[in-house]
């Protein structure tokens, strides 16, 4: 039973991480209908920027954290301006391939600079965060993950619900021509959504880095793990991303714990294929109705 609870806790934490990384993905999809194949690399960029600022330049952690967020925010603008702006109105396939290209390029760049080894952040989480409750032990990193995750979800919920930019984003996602005709600056919304997606990605990258150390290969692999999560939840639903993340995290941990460790890597994708066959638009995804 202890084992079960430990797996449950691990699965939930892993699921929260997936949900966190899926959020940025959903953000881009929601406001520009772009499937971002570079998401894992965005995570890695944020994580490495934080590494440089916090561990190499030895800035105070809070400062390093905010500098990272500001940095990736502007990087998001730059990437959107340089690479995605020319493609507005182009075929979907070209946009997807573009994100693929961006991802590969960034990964190459990161590998150049940091190599393929695992880097570690300095220990900075207070031990007091860890929870011991009977037999269940939750290390402080996981607690931090929970806190950051929940904080983020609340911020984004409020942002989309009440801020004017958030409302613009929803309107663009809902119906782009209508939003344009009502005077929404669609290009600005796109740029902003990429910038915010970069921020969310950086956050999850940092959290992942605290957890297992940061490594270019692992972080970009997380970008691919996000697909089962968002498909399960529905590509354009934030709530779906969270629920999907938790479900996939649990499935993965329990498979790893009870069946076999090697199956663990592939089980999300098997689940993915099954979902696609049974419920293609996921739990909360918007179903496109077609009539011929």
């Amino acid at each position, binding site marked *: 039973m202890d084992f079960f609870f430990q797996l449950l806790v691990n699965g939930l934490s892993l699921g929260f991480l997936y949900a966190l990384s899926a959020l940025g993905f959903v953000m881009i999809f929601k406001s520009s209908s772009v*499937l971002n194949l570079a998401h894992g690399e965005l995570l890695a960029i944020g994580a490495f920027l934080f590494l440089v600022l916090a561990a190499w330049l030895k800035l105070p952690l809070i400062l390093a954290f905010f500098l990272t967020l500001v940095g990736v925010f502007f990087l998001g603008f730059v990437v959107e301006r340089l690479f995605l702006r020319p493609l507005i109105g182009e075929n979907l*396939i070209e946009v997807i391939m573009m994100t693929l290209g961006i*991802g*590969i390029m960034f*990964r*190459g760049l990161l*590998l150049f600079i940091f190599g393929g080894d695992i880097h570690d952040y300095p220990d900075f989480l207070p031990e007091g965060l860890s929870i011991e409750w009977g037999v269940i032990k939750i290390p402080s990193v996981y607690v931090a993950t929970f806190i950051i995750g929940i904080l983020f979800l609340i911020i984004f919920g409020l942002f989309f619900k009440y801020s004017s930019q958030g409302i613009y984003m929803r309107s663009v996602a809902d119906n782009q021509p209508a939003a344009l005709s009502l005077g929404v600056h669609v290009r600005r919304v796109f740029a902003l959504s990429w910038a915010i997606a970069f921020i969310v990605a950086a956050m999850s990258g940092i959290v992942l880095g605290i957890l297992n150390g940061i490594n270019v290969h692992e972080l970009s692999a997380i970008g691919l793990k996000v697909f089962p999560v968002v498909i399960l939840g529905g*590509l354009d639903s934030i709530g779906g991303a969270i629920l999907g993340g938790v479900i996939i995290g649990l499935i993965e941990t329990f498979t790893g714990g009870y069946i076999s460790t090697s199956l663990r890597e592939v089980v999300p994708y098997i689940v993915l294929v099954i979902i*696609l066959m049974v419920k293609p638009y996921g739990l909360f995804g918007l179903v496109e109705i077609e009539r011929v």
Partner: protein
Amino acid sequence: MRKLRFHPCGNFKESYLQELTIFETDFGRLWMLVGLVLLFCVIPFVCSPYLIYVLNTIGIYSIAAIGLNLLIGYTGQISLGHGAFFGVGAYSAAILANKAGFPFILALPAASLITAGVGLVFGLPSSRLKHLYLLIATLAGQFILEYVFVHWESMTGGAMGIVVFNVGLFGFDLGTDRRFYFVVFALFTFMTWVAVNLIRTRYGRAFIAIRDNDRAAEGMGIPVFGYKLLSFAISSFYAGLAGALFAYYMMSITPEPFNLWLSIEFIAMIIIGGLGSIPGSVFGAVFIVTLNEVLSHLTEYLMNVGVSAGAAITIAPLREFVFGLVIILFIIFEPKGIAEVWRIVRSSFRLWPFSY
């Protein structure tokens, strides 16, 4: 005798058949013959073994790229699992040859058919899914197949892989690069011919209709699902054939090469070459294979030069960076790929001295 046609100045087409013709001028036909003669009678006898090896790789990748272009460029179904299908072809050929004792000539088509079947299975989600979702489904296919390669040890030999022997055609040993060259390029020519003609038939036109607007295609009475599956099967058939050739050529296969990166390389090939263009797929394969070779020589050179020797540059990051950059630059500046450049060059020669 029919009148020879050279440079048509203007559009004098009078029937749909003329519209569908492959060679607009007899000049083009002549150049194709020259090309074939060069390919089979000159190149293999003047090139160095290393160049032959590069050419063989190009030929094998071209076959797979043509298959992927039929799927992505003509039918509009994005697939991120082509590298795994290539692997399925390689593994089935190796297993059929080693365990069932199939001769080379039977193992190739059998492996291709098996791959076509696997491709069909992973194309099934296309009944209900479109672009984005389908892309993700094929991505899942890639990972599941990779897992199978590594973990079905009794068949695939796990991470150790399989060794393939006895490449022979009717008792004639094909073990050397130069002999294998003829096999690769005979198949390459045949498969290109098939692909070029396939897209002129009703099947090909149905593919293009589905790519352009699948709802309209359905409204016109095209059974969209059937044709999508067919497209998946044909594309995987090409991948399987290329994979089987690869297995025989490399003599030993491990799960290593058939990863997501290979799928991305294939996609890069057809984007750089030109989506929806058969010559484009070949151009793309030439470009990517050449780029790979140049980069590996470059890194080798950099590692031996005094200044950068300490930096220990490895090929992987450089290759990834250049690949990503090349994909991005092509999409922004020449979305139709090298095939479009080729067309412009050709037509400016043809129309000279006028610019239109």
